[in-house]
C-alpha cells in the first residue's frame, strides 16, 4: 500500500488583509480560514492516486487550533488520517522553521511514507519554499510545480511546467512533489463526508514537546527570517498618449520607453538596474 503524506496550510479567505504594523505579520485573525488552494490541488492529486492504487493518505498541518477545520475538510474529501501540529512556541515560524517541524512530525508519525505532496505555494505568503526545504531536510528527490503524476512501481514520473516549457522527470520513492494548480481540480466535499470527517478518530494533535522540540532548540534552529519593515508600494501609473503617423509614434515610443521594456525584449536585469540608477 502506498503511503502518502499531504502537507496543507490554512490561509485567510480574503485577498486583502490588514497587517500588524509592529510585527509586520498579517492580521489573520480578522478573516475566516480556508485550505490554501494549491494544497487542495495537492490533496486532490493524492486522492486520485488513491483511486488508482491502494493508498493511505495522511494530512498534516501546522497552525492554530482553528486549523483543525482544514484537516477535517481534507478528511471529508477522502483523506484517511490527520495530524495537527499546534503549539504557541511554533507561532510565527518562517518557512525554514516550518519545514523543520514538518520533518520531525513526518519522521515520527509516518516514517515509512512513499510520497509527500505539498501545494506549490500558498496564496497568503507565496514563498513556495516549504516543499523544497522539506525535501532538503528529509534528503529526498523532489520536483516543484508538478501538474501531473504517474506511478510505475517504485518509480514516480512527474510532468511540470516551468518557465513556459514542460518537462517530465522520473524519481524513485520516497520522494516529494509540490503540486501546481494547472490540473487536479479539487473535488467538493460531500455533506455526508463532512459529517463523517468528525467521526474519524484518526485525528492527532501534537505539540512541540511531542516532536522533541524545546524552546531553546526552536530558538537556535527556528525562524531565521525577521520582518524588518512592511510597506505598501504605491503604484504610480500615468497615461501618455502618442499621436501622429505610425512610424513617428513607434519611433517616439522606442526613443522614450525602450529602456523600460528592456526585460521584455531580452535585456538583462543588471543592465536595467544600471539604467535606473542613472
Amino acid at each position, binding site marked *: 500500500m502506498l503511503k502518502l503524506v499531504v502537507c496543507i496550510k490554512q490561509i485567510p*479567505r480574503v485577498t486583502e488583509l490588514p497587517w500588524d504594523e509592529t510585527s509586520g505579520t498579517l492580521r489573520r485573525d480578522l478573516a*475566516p480560514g*480556508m485550505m490554501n488552494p494549491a494544497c487542495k490541488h495537492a490533496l486532490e492529486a493524492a486522492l486520485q492516486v488513491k483511486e488508482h492504487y491502494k493508498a493511505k493518505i495522511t494530512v498534516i498541518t501546522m497552525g492554530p487550533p482553528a486549523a*483543525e*477545520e482544514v484537516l*477535517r*475538510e481534507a478528511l*471529508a474529501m477522502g483523506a484517511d488520517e490527520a495530524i495537527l501540529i499546534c503549539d504557541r512556541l511554533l507561532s510565527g515560524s518562517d518557512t525554514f522553521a516550518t519545514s523543520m517541524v514538518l520533518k520531525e512530525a513526518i519522521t515520527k508519525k509516518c516514517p515509512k511514507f512513499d510520497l509527500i505532496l505539498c501545494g506549490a505555494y500558498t496564496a497568503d505568503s507565496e514563498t513556495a519554499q516549504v516543499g523544497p526545504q522539506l525535501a532538503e531536510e528529509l534528503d529526498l528527490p523532489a520536483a516543484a510545480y508538478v501538474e501531473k503524476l504517474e506511478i510505475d512501481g517504485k518509480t514516480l514520473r512527474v510532468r511540470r511546467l516551468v518557465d513556459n516549457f514542460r518537462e517530465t522527470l522520473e524519481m524513485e520513492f520516497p520522494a516529494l512533489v509540490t503540486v501546481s494548480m494547472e490540473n487536479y481540480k479539487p473535488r*467538493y*466535499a*460531500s*455533506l*455526508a463526508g*463532512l*459529517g463523517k*470527517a*468528525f467521526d474519524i478518530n484518526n485525528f492527532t494533535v501534537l505539540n512541540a514537546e511531542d516532536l522533541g522540540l524545546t524552546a531553546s532548540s526552536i530558538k537556535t534552529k527556528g525562524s531565521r527570517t525577521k520582518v524588518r519593515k512592511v510597506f505598501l508600494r504605491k503604484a504610480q501609473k500615468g497615461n501618455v498618449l502618442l499621436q501622429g503617423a505610425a512610424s513617428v509614434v513607434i519611433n517616439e515610443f522606442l526613443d522614450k520607453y525602450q529602456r523600460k521594456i528592456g526585460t521584455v525584449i531580452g535585456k538583462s536585469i543588471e543592465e536595467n538596474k544600471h539604467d535606473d540608477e542613472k
Partner: protein
Amino acid sequence: MQLNPCTKHKLIRDSVRNFAETELAPIAAEIDRTATFPRPVIEKMGRLNYFGLQVPKEFGGAAMDSVSMAIVVEEISRVCAAIGLCVTVHNGVAVYPILQFANPEQMKAYLPKLASGKWIGAFSLTEANAGSDSASVETTAVKKNSDYILNGTKIFVTNGGVCDLALIFALTGFEPGKPQSSVFIVESNYAGFLRGELEDLCGMRANPVSSLFLEDCPVPASNLLGKIGDGMKIGLATLDNGRIGIAAQALGIAQGAFEAAVKYAKERQQFKKPIASLQTIQNYIADMATEIAAARLLLYNACALKDAGAPFGCEASMAKLYCSTVASKVTSLAVQIHGGYGYSKEYDVERYFRDAKVTEIYEGTSEIQRLVIARTVLSQWIF
C-alpha cells in the same frame, strides 16, 4: 444551547459557500432571467447529498442536524434563492414527512431516490380555494380496489415542473362536522398526473413552480402516507419543519443582499468619499447587521429545539415571520443603498429584492405565522 458555531457547522458553511460561489453565482442572474431550472448543477448537488440533508446514511443521506440543514439552505440562498427554494422544499416538506410518517417499505422505495437528488420532491397542499385555510382542500381520493383514484387541481407547487414525486393532500371523507384529508405519495409517472404551465413569477424564477392536475389518477393504496385522516396532522407537522427551511432561505437572501450593499457602500463615491462614510448609510448598515444577527439566532433556536426533540412549532413560526420580514426590509435597503443601479438587473440586489417578498407569503403567510404564535402564547404559555 451553543451560540457560537462549532467547527462542524463552520466547515459546513464554508463548504456550501464555496460550492455556491463557484457553481451557482456565475449562473444565478441568467437562470433568473430565463426562468431555467439548472439540471447539471442540480445533479452535482445530488451527488454531494444536498437532497438528502436529514436522510439517514443507510438511505444515502447526510444525516445532518437541523442547524446544519439551515446553514446549507442559508448559504445556497445567499447566492441563489431559487435553488435554495428547490433544496428546502425538497428536504423540508417532501422528504421530511416521509422520514416522519412513512412505513419501512415506503422509506426503502423512495428515500434513496430522493436523497440522491435523482428524484425531486414536491409538497402539494395549496389549491385555488385552499391556502391558509388548509381544511378546504377539494381534491378527492376515492378507494377503488387496491388504488385510490385522485381528482383535483393543485396550484403554486414549488418544484412542480420537475418533481418526480409529490405529496398530495386529498379529501378522503368526512368526520362528523369536518372534512377528513389524507396524504398520498404520488409519482409523476402515474397515469392522470399532469403538469400545468410554469408560473411566470416575480422572483424565484429559476424554480419551476406549476399547477398539478390529477385526472382519475390511480395511486396504489400502499402509497398512503400515515393513516387515512392523517392529512391535517401531517400537514401541520410538515409546515412547522418547512418554516425552518423558509426562514433559513429568507436569512440567506438577507445576508446576500446585505453583503452586496456593504461592498457597494464602500466602493461608491459621492461627495468625493465612499457613501459608507455617510452616517445615513451607516445607520442602514447597522440596522441590517443587527436584524440579520437577531434573525439568525431565532432560526438556530428553532433548529436547536427541533434537534433536542422539543416542540418547535411556535419558534419555527417566529423564525419564519422574523427572517422573512428582515429579508424584505434588508433587500429593500440594499436596493436603496445601490440607488438607481440597485433597480437595474445588472446588480444582484434587484433579484434579491424580488426573491425576498415571497418568503413573507409561502409556507404560511406572515399573518398565519402571527396566528400560530398568538395561539401558542395564549393557550400554552404560563407566566
